[in-house]
């Protein structure tokens, strides 16, 4: 019994450390049935509402560009990722090269890991970005 308890405690601790590690790394990619998705979109997967983003209920194509903006407010996003004056144009939602015209999926991956578009050339830090 005692060993069982200890192993349970150990398991809980291990899971806690693991979960803490995950959230520290900003990893929000989880398994939902046979597809991977973001933990913060769990509601969508529970309801099997692929059509919230995809035009077809059995998704065969990428969602329309900017379909994320059906729920997320573009101006709020710009505000949320604004940077100090000398880095003004490093705001991913209103950036120097493309303004506000970069489709969300060029930086964000819903079903797989991704990286910011600018990482090809620049080494800007986006601590809240979920790869």
């Amino acid at each position, binding site marked *: 019994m005692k060993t069982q308890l200890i192993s349970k405690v150990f398991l809980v601790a291990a899971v806690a450390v693991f979960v803490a590690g995950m959230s520290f790394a900003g990893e929000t990619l989880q398994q939902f049935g046979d597809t991977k998705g973001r933990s913060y979109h769990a509601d969508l997967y529970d309801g099997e509402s692929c059509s919230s983003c995809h035009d077809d209920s059995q998704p065969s194509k990428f969602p329309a560009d900017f379909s994320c903006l059906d729920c997320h407010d573009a101006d709020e996003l710009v505000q949320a990722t604004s940077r100090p004056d000398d880095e003004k144009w490093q705001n991913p939602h209103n950036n120097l090269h493309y303004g506000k015209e970069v*489709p969300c999926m*060029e930086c964000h991956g819903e079903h797989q890991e991704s990286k910011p578009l600018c990482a090809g050339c*620049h080494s800007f830090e986006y601590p809240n970005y979920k790869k």
Partner: protein
Amino acid sequence: MEKKGYQADRRKFLAGMGMVGAAALAAPALNAVAGESDVKWGEEHEVVIIGSGFTGLAAAIEAKKLGAKDVVVYDKMPYFGGNSTFNGGLFAVPNSPLQKEKGVKDSPEIMTADQVKAGRGVAYEELLLHVAKHANEALEMTLEAGSEYFPYLQQLGGHSVPRTYQTTVASGAGIIQPLVKQCQKLGVKLVTRAKFDSLIFDDNGTVVGAKIMMGHYFGRGVEGTAVNVRARRGVLIATGGFARNVELRKAQDPTLTEEVPSTNPASATGEALLEMFRVGAVPVHMAHIQTGPWASPDEDGFGYVSNYSIYNFAHSLSVYIKTGRRFMNEIADRKTRSDAQLACRDDDGKPLPPITITSYEHAKEHPTMKKVLKYGVGWKFDTLEELADHFKVPLEPLKAQIEEYNGYVKSGVDEQFGKPMGKAKGKYIQAPFVVVRNWPKVHYCQGGAQIDVQARVIDSNTWKPIPGLYAGGEVTGGMHGVSRLGSCSIPDCMVMGMTAARTMMKS
């Protein structure tokens, strides 16, 4: 095959035809590969523009100004601007308002002469002069759209006078973003994820449209759905260069392997250029591929060091690490400098990127210095000893070199490499110092399809323009010859885009 070889899907057609059929078609008509009579049109527009860089957007705005009702711009990427929005935002204009204000004597002829010299005898003078004469109109178009420029001029390598504007954001984005907004305001249709596939001809060999792959996802394995777009006034190819097509650039210059980086975005692959060659356009200067001597091995892409070096070279000295001595005129044309840098090697023949030393008090005049230091691609030193120690440069020869160079600053004559010292006047090299490392990157393809001064694409069968087909900017060849001078691409692109629109609207 009665229809002289015109067919909607040329590739399948040629593949299925076999050698005998191909031989039977080895007549001028082979150029015109898709015939109008077979085409099911999906869309129709008055002016069709492929590519949304400087050339494409300038053409769209000009066409609208000249009364076009229906202008469409396609880009294969999910956003606009291509390589233009990565560019450094440097814009050479002769007889500009700023030159008048600062009392700089210049003319389109003087600018052309500078470019002809860098072109090493093979540049197309007529095209250069045309661009120089109209550069002010292009500048005006950007100002009207809301572009902002530094209130001073720069004198870039190979230019005999200061004539270069730069956007306050030190990027072509400072022009592309306002032009995109201007297009939207004027009702130009801007379509992303739309990849040009091939040209469509009528039975007389006139370009009457283009096959576009709509819903193209670059780099994600989705080609898109073919839509035949009819173009009532013609098609303008404004798709830029091929710096990122390693096979194509290696075919021209075997030294430009995958190991040589590039300042361009991954989309600079040149497939529209190859399509123009397939239909009979004349390949010009394809092997003249320019590397940028101001780039840095310490960052990817165009980065921060490029603009930093472009601004600072005039009052800096570049030094070979092994000797502590200069090895080039820091504002010679690009090819001269790139070749000199590539010769900087260690004892094993491996690249040993040279360093460029600038006085902090002069470097800080340009906003890129802060970025260079902040992102760790440049370094500040309080003493020459620290600098020499950091880069392992022999101190005494370096000290002597700087003293010698400061003598040239004083006398105004560079006895080592003949550098024009006008912009270095009074700017002695002294502590504290800012230092960057330089190594060339593939930057610009001088080669491309031949056009005339009206932006019409020339046919290698007839040596006359291919009716309905226009091209401008980096996708064309000839204008710059062996080496393009810095800040001469924006005027080239903008003016030839405007020119193409003017020609189309007269057609």
